[in-house]
């Protein structure tokens, strides 16, 4: 099957976790009294939900520009790791494909690709699969933000649909846990994230990610010596 289509289909089940997040983002734009044009401009050019939410919250409080920007960028620093990982597949890609892949990097797209790695024989197949996941994610995200902006947070609170967001991450995470070392890193990251949760400017996420990667490195080196 065409790898683009395969990628598109692979993230279809997790859109139930994207829609409530998009709705929250859309209603946050609306509550901040941003115009539809401003909201969509930010959504289409930044395209990073968590940092957009933090930035809009800070802008409502009239925080200094550097505080808004630094907070947003620190939340987005994790994309540096995804970018490094994606670069191995994009060696021979055209500048346009590289740009599209970089611009559409998300947790979900990268995790979906990482969980399906064994299906790709060439870098081109991997890139097509990735672009398929990114197309599905982008489409769902923009439409749900638009709906959230127009209709408010339409998800009934009794259904707690916002809980679908962490659940969709679980569904993406578990297939990437291939052995005991992956499990150790995941548990280590979970524990550290609680410890560093209250670090300022939401730096806990990046500190946790870097320390977890460091542990993974130690485990890889240890496994090689055995």
């Amino acid at each position, binding site marked *: 099957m065409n790898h683009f289509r395969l990628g598109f289909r692979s993230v279809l089940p997790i859109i139930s976790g994207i829609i409530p997040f998009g709705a929250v983002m859309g209603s946050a734009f609306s509550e901040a009294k941003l115009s539809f044009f401003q909201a969509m401009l930010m959504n289409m050019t930044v395209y990073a939900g968590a940092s957009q939410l933090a930035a809009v919250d800070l802008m409502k409080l009239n925080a200094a520009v550097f505080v808004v920007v630094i907070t947003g960028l620190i939340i987005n620093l994790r994309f540096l790791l995804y970018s490094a990982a994606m670069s191995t597949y994009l060696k021979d890609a055209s500048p346009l494909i590289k740009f599209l892949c970089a611009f559409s990097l998300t947790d979900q797209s990268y995790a979906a690709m990482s969980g399906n790695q064994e299906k790709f024989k060439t870098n081109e197949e991997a890139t097509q699969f990735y672009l398929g996941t990114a197309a599905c994610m982008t489409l769902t995200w923009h439409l749900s933000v638009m709906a959230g902006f127009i209709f408010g947070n339409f998800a009934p609170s009794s259904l707690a649909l916002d809980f679908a967001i962490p659940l969709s991450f679980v569904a993406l995470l578990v297939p990437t*846990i291939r052995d005991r070392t992956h499990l150790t890193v995941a548990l280590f990251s979970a524990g550290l994230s609680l410890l560093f*949760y209250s670090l300022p400017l939401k730096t806990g996420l990046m500190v946790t990610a870097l320390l977890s990667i460091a542990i993974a490195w130690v485990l890889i080196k240890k496994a090689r010596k055995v």
Partner: protein
Amino acid sequence: MIGNNYFLTNLILLMAGTICIRGSFIAFSGKMTISPDIRKLFTYIPAAILPALIVPATFFYQGRVEWLNGKERFLILTAACIACYFIRNTLFVISFGLVMLYLVTNF
């Protein structure tokens, strides 16, 4: 009310910074050699980042089920992880978690 100039300044800087972060390594792909160990390390990225996104969001969420000390989301998420390990189906995991949460909070 968020002023237009203030909004645009923030937007441009955030957009430029984010694309620089996302494009950083991708822009130089093909121009650097990545060792097999580093390639292996990349497979750990989801395990390093995703738990840090989901665990605090559920653990520090104050729920309303008294007998679970308000930690129903965290406990159901843990159960969903175990279920997902055995049944690798995204829709099942999301439905399982949402139904469990609905039942625990409403009955």
